[in-house]
């Protein structure tokens, strides 16, 4: 069943392109550090060198290899993105389904909370929280970002489930005496699976972008290298105004390539699975 579901995806040109680009970066993050065994933190006397055979992407102010940083950065940024996405997805699904199933006061309260979080700029809250934490692990950064980007998803899930709830088969399940939990897992969750997956992909983007923003403002992970941290170093050392393009172009380009490819994947899925968008 799963195969017949994803098969039409691989006939969509957009999906293939987006998927391929994403896989390339996924492999760079996973296998890059394995095959390119240069320590990204090792300082050498070859500082601020443009790309050369010994340093394919050049070096930074401390003579550290940019390509090695890039591989580790892609790995961490993807990790942060995934982690933040899982957190957002769980919170969003929980609040959205609970609202739709319980209705009444529970629904009102949860939606009020959702709307408050939705109106409040998540990056600002993230900045405020992060500023109070002296040590920020990669996981903490992902948590801070994941905690605030779920509201639009919760709202969409709720709306969708509200309409599912009025269908016959759900009524039958309720009459058959299903518990709320069984109802949620057997009747409701499957109807939002595709949408949840598409949103998951966008949450990854939110996590990656959020990390880059936090890092640039000086509130990124305090240990480890991410794409945002690379950009922060480049800005701190005035790489842009001193013309060291090899330092700030690769991390930014990677962010754009990863997030754009994921957005293309999600858009393509929408085109394939959403009958209103299907091209005649």
């Amino acid at each position: 069943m799963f195969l017949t579901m994803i098969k039409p995806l691989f006939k969509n040109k957009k999906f293939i392109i987006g998927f391929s680009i994403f896989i390339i970066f996924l492999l760079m993050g996973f296998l890059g550090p394995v095959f390119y065994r240069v320590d990204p933190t090792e300082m050498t006397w070859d500082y601020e060198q443009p790309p050369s055979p010994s340093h394919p992407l050049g070096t930074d102010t401390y003579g550290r290899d940019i390509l090695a940083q890039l591989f580790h950065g892609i790995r961490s940024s993807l990790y942060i993105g995934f982690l933040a996405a899982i957190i957002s997805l769980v919170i969003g699904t929980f609040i959205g389904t609970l609202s739709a199933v319980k209705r009444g006061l529970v629904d009102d309260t949860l939606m009020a909370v959702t709307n408050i979080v939705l109106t409040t700029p998540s990056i600002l809250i993230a900045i405020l929280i992060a500023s109070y934490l002296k040590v920020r692990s990669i996981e903490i950064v992902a948590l801070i970002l994941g905690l605030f980007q779920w509201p639009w998803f919760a709202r969409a899930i709720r709306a969708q489930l509200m309409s599912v709830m009025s269908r016959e088969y759900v009524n039958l399940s309720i009459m058959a005496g299903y518990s709320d939990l069984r109802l949620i897992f057997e009747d409701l969750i499957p109807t939002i699976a595709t949408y949840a997956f598409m949103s998951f992909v966008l949450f990854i983007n939110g996590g990656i972008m959020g990390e880059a923003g936090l890092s640039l403002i000086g509130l990124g992970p305090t240990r480890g290298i991410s794409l945002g941290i690379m950009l922060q170093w480049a800005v701190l050392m005035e790489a842009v105004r001193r013309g060291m393009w090899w330092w700030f172009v690769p991390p930014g380009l990677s962010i754009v390539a990863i997030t754009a490819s994921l957005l293309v994947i999600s858009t393509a899925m929408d085109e394939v699975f959403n009958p209103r968008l299907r091209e005649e």
Partner: protein
Amino acid sequence: MASRSAVKYILRRLIFLFITYVVATTIVFILPRAIPGNPLSQILSNLSRVAQSNPEAIRAAEKNLMEEFGLGKPWYLQYVEFIGKALKGDLGTSITYYPRKVMDLIVPVIPWTLVLILPATIVAWILGNSLGALAAYRRNTWIDKGVLTGSLVVSQIPYYWLGMIFIFFFGVKLGWLPVQGAYSQGTIPDLSWAFFMDALKHYILPFLSIVVSAMGGWAIGMRLMVIYELGSDYANFSEYIGMKDKRIFRYVFRNSLLPQVTGLALSLGSVLGGALITEIVFNYPGTGYLLFKALTTLDYPLIQGVFVILIASVYLANFIVDFVYALIDPRIRIGQEE
């Protein structure tokens, strides 16, 4: 013109935003008290660093700080005092720039941020929506494909990174435009023509980096919206009765624009976040740059102050968008719905 339903809608939004503002300031209140490691003691140890150069100031600052945080009083009194002050606009005293008030530091930088973010957001919104509508109107032509592909990529470029690319290309490589600041160093902002031209030159790159990368998202959203609307019953019906394409499109365009107005309200936060970081990249003397300086010195009263002000402005902007929405949406204006 202002029907009862419009007034009701506006009032409801106003109450909601007020509650949201209280919640946000509550977070500001709770955070330093809830996070382990007690940031207040961090502030004090920060103070002692400053103190080595100026021991007189530290004692005054410390006393001030204890008073402002209301330490020693029960927490609910602290809270009431804090919210009251926040609503009055009293945000405390900066540590780094002691004894200057946080408010006095923030107020002068706000215009720079507004001047950058408002026009950029509006221009991006108009251009993006027009492009998106055009793409949907010419669905499946090369225009559509070009706009969609371009928008998908461009919408994912962080403003600040596009800013870096622009600085490098137009500033460093070509030398056409200044690479940092909002005006040349050494000039004093005044109302002269020369200063205006100087500021304008500095303005182009940060402005363009926000406009270009913000445009993509609007184009994608609008394209989708118009495609949906074109498939709706009224659009099909108009086609059957032989209405001209252009006229149908005008109706469709206006209907598709409504959700984009709501979208504008929802996107304000992330636009602001991106713009703040863009300011840092450009050393542009706005709120983001001030926040950045406050963060590097861990000047908590200033960080909190900037946060409260920014959040309040986002809510205010939200309210303005809601207001505009109530004016242009006939369902609210005339009050057909509820």
